[in-house]
């Protein structure tokens, strides 16, 4: 079967697939609140919460695997960070109740 290209705007499904949650996205809350509130310059300012271009994944891992990579890479990093957070938190609370840890650290810092 011959492969024919159609321009984007001809298929509603393909358009919806893209425009609803991809590209530059402002929090849903914001979009609603835009209506009727004296906006940014008065009450709030816009900040960049995250920025991603998917090019870097393909450069790093090659074309084929790039396909499904982003989500996996993200989630793994996320989990790792969560685990690390957990560990650090445990250390912190241990340090708070147990003076020795803190002392040892300080000593270490002095040595360095």
């Amino acid at each position: 079967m011959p492969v024919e290209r159609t321009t984007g705007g001809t298929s509603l499904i393909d358009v919806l697939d893209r425009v609803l949650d991809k590209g530059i996205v402002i929090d849903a809350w914001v979009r609603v609140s835009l209506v009727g509130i004296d906006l940014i310059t008065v009450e709030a300012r816009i900040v960049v919460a995250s920025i991603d271009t998917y090019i870097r994944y393909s450069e790093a891992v090659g074309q084929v695997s790039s396909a499904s990579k982003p989500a996996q890479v993200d989630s793994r990093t996320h989990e790792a960070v969560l685990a690390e957070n957990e560990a650090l938190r445990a250390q912190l609370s241990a340090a708070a109740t147990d003076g020795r840890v803190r002392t040892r650290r300080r000593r270490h810092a002095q040595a360095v």
Partner: protein
Amino acid sequence: MPTTQHRRTKRTTKAGDGATQAAAASPAPRAPRGDGRGKYVYCIIGSTEPLRFGAIGIGAQPSDVHTINYRDIAAIVSDTPLEVHDATRENVLAHERVNETVMRDHTVIPMSFGTVFKTRDDIIELLRAAYDAFCDVLGKMQGKVEFGVKVLWDRDEMVREIERDDEDVRQLKKEIATQKGSTYFARVQYGRLIDQALQTRSERCVNDIFETLGDVSVASRANKPIGDKMIMNAAFLVARDKEAAFDARLKAIGARYGALTFKYTGPWPPYNFVNIRLKLERAQPE
């Protein structure tokens, strides 16, 4: 008076009540007020000069699409009622139509559907606040467009093919047909084999397509296939000067896989390759 103006917008918006309250509670408004009009943002481009694209904007009476410039970038906007736009067919296609028009001569970072700002100043603030991010992404997307490739197959046809080609399956099928007693376990086994074979075939096929398109594209993303006929739902980022090569390569693949149906769309703004999340942070009231 702020309240009068907000009452005017209230009729058209779901958020009317909350908005009216919030506005009443907010500090004294600044001029100029948009008189119930807002600005719909379609995309961001790099440009130092003001541009116009004609009356192709969103809404029942398409208004003039033009730029709001800040340094060397610009937002593509049109005037629109200050309301939440429903994702109707007309609205969504209008959003896309503007993007496609602007894309002909510019690299765009598409805005997701339905973003309306109240005033020109708010958009300048957007451009200022996210300037570095926009410039970074504009640089990376320079001269590149997105293409969509969906691949569908006829599952029944594939099953017939597997029954023809796969020795084990063929054997099992014969067994089921000739066996006298219960064929339950043979049938379960048959189903499992077919599923495995389908899975293997679709993976092999999809990998092959990704690989074949690899060196004529900059990046690719696999989205989740929709429905059980679709085996591939991908987007490719392609440099403008590789567009013809990409086209030819895909047509060759189509010729090689005669049994598959290809849905090939584009060029699109690089929706699948740009992800900029913005949020509002509360500032201290002056």
